[in-house]
């Protein structure tokens, strides 16, 4: 039977188990933003609690602190996670992106060294891809890593690194062959942000918090053992990581379904402002989040039966980011004059969460590869149109 759209008893039992644990453990109060020192610390504490409960990364093998769950169980877990309004994952770069990359490309020693502290919140990771002159054109990166015996000497600059201000480590690609151009001669390195010669300069985001940072490397010594994969193989590993980011893991449907549910509630609470456009936007939100969920289960089922995710991961990224922006825009319209009120203002609807969410939704079409770049990928790799 290939179409069985009901959960098995085992899956239902798993859901019940997650639900019970979340009900006991999810903090009753919303944590402060993870882009502040205090919020970051509280989120790290939450990661530790999740880990202690065995819920840090359910799809990982047990040896690394996981439960060996399959993708459907992972989706169920995510549904219960967002249903319980549990905090955002401050460890997301590690657990969703570097983690799967390490499992695929890491040596046994690297996996043993890096995965457990990633799962338990002891080491939180930042991504260091972008450079001031290598954003969309990531192959233009210039930050260098020069081999000297058993280590590399790293110099150069990265930028827009989310949570680097508070994180412990970063991963990214660096030019290990000085004579190389574009995609060649790059290597994937794991670098502690506490290393000598690393300077992290915070950059305030739209909301005024230091959500990302510039990272300067000034002759930083990085052991060769911190290289993931072979020297010069950095680009293809980075593309695999980007695939995880655009594909399933970064944005599970539950997050958006929760937003759509909240939007319906907001619409009902603002009956006086319920214009036909508002109603249409609310119905659209439900349909799109539902479609996104169906698409994700469809993909997960295929992956579980041995298929690989291809360039269509770019479709996902476009779909969720633009849907999220539309939902938040609709909420802003429904709130009218209350839309501008910040968290902490007594009159702020939902304590300013829609405003936060709206600002963050504007970043969705930019990070993880802008949507323009994703459209190019779809046109060239899914449809086979010629390169410009």
């Amino acid at each position, binding site marked *: 039977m290939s179409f069985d*759209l009901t959960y098995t008893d085992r899956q239902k039992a798993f859901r019940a188990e997650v639900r019970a644990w979340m009900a006991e453990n999810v903090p009753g109060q919303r944590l402060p933003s993870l882009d502040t020192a205090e919020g970051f610390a509280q989120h790290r504490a939450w990661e530790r609690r999740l880990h202690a409960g065995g819920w840090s990364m359910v799809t990982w093998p047990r040896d690394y602190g996981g439960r060996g769950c399959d993708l459907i169980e992972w989706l169920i877990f995510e549904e219960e996670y967002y*249903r319980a309004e549990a905090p955002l994952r401050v460890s997301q770069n590690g657990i969703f992106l570097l983690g799967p990359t390490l499992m695929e490309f890491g040596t046994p020693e690297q996996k043993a060294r890096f995965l457990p502290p990633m799962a338990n919140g002891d080491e939180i990771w930042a991504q260091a891809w972008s450079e001031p002159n290598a954003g969309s054109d990531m192959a233009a990166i210039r930050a260098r890593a020069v081999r000297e015996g058993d280590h590399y000497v790293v110099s150069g600059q990265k930028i827009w690194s989310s949570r680097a201000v508070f994180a412990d480590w970063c991963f990214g690609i660096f030019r290990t062959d000085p004579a190389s151009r574009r995609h060649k001669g790059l290597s994937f390195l794991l670098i502690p942000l506490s290393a000598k010669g690393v300077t992290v300069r915070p950059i305030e985001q739209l909301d005024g918090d230091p959500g990302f940072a510039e990272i300067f490397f000034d002759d930083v010594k990085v052991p060769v053992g911190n290289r993931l994969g072979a020297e010069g193989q950095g680009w293809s590993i980075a593309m695999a990581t980007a695939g995880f980011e655009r594909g399933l893991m970064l944005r599970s*449907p539950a997050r958006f379904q929760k937003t759509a549910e909240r939007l319906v509630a907001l619409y009902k609470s603002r009956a006086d402002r319920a214009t036909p456009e508002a109603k249409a936007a609310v*119905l659209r939100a439900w*349909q799109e989040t539902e479609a996104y969920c169906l*698409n994700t289960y469809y993909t997960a089922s295929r992956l579980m039966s041995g298929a690989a995710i291809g360039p269509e991961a770019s*479709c996902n990224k476009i779909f969720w980011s633009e849907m999220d922006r539309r939902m938040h825009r609709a909420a802003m319209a429904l709130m009218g004059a209350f839309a501008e009120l910040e968290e902490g203002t007594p009159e702020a609807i939902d304590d300013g969460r829609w405003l936060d969410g709206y600002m963050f939704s504007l970043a969705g079409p930019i990070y993880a590869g802008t949507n323009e770049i994703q*459209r190019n990928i779809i046109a060239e790799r*899914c449809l086979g149109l*010629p390169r410009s």
Partner: protein
Amino acid sequence: MEFRLSQDQKDLVEGAAAFFVGECPPAVLRRLEGGMCEELWSKVAQMGFLGILAPEEVGGLGLDLIDLTLLVEQAGRVALPLPVVENAGLAVPLLAQCGESELLDKVMSGSGRVIVVHPAVPFVNHAEQACAAIICKRERIGVLPAAALRLEKVNSIDPLRSLSRVSYDAWHGKEVLVGEAAGEMEKQVFTRAAVLTAAELLGLAAGMIEMATEYAKTREQFGKPIGSFQALKHHLANAFVKLEFARPVVYRAAALSPQTSKIDVAVAHAKLAAGDAACFAAETAIQVFGGMGYTYEADLHFWMKRVWALQGLWGDRDFHTSRLERYVLADGAALGPGQTFE
């Protein structure tokens, strides 16, 4: 939980695609215009396609609505101008259920066609050559011989649809279902028809995206294929994304049993999503074709016009939107994470 095509289904899709592309290239559409291609119809019957939903005991393939959905999607890709949905999707299961074996054999073998007259559809496609009509009313379902029907021709913008207003004076035929059972059946006919129409819309969208993509690879302006220009790439990518996200919505609706509490909203969602994807693909395709797209000479128009026709059939946008609205805005509606499946 398992939501993917089986190997058999992938084979079905592949086989159907090859068959339709081979037997129904645009040249066939051009030759037909308004008529009915009997030769093509009997080939479709020979493939067993018309008996997909009929049990094996009566000579059908004993497959389910998902299989037929996949088939109809492939039929849509070539804008197949045949009433497959009406016969394979609506008439066949109805006749099988009511034990109308003689008519059933006729339909499955391709030697006779049946029309379905249902309150949701004011004009009936290909009624002229039908040998019988199944009349669906809320309280009774019956079979009328063609002789008892009066047909008045109406013109569709789709040159490959041949529409009639169908009426009959009295109930000369045979009642096959009455009362509650008839009401239930009438609803099921509607559900199946809406899902299959959505599937055809998906196929039409895919066909138009393919056609426009091919054109964009060969047509040159400024010394290069127009498909190398980013503006066009992005138009086509947008159409592709919409289609990719409509497909599982339609498959889900096809996979739900008609008794599920969510069936109506799932079907409404399917029809809306597929309709949107198809309209968007049509508008994108004509833009990619430029002036050529605005002609009768380009094949594109067959696909576009079918989309316009199917949009309003088996529940138009308003109808399905209000079903959806009733569900989403109901007090205590089961929305949010974890509510998509049971």
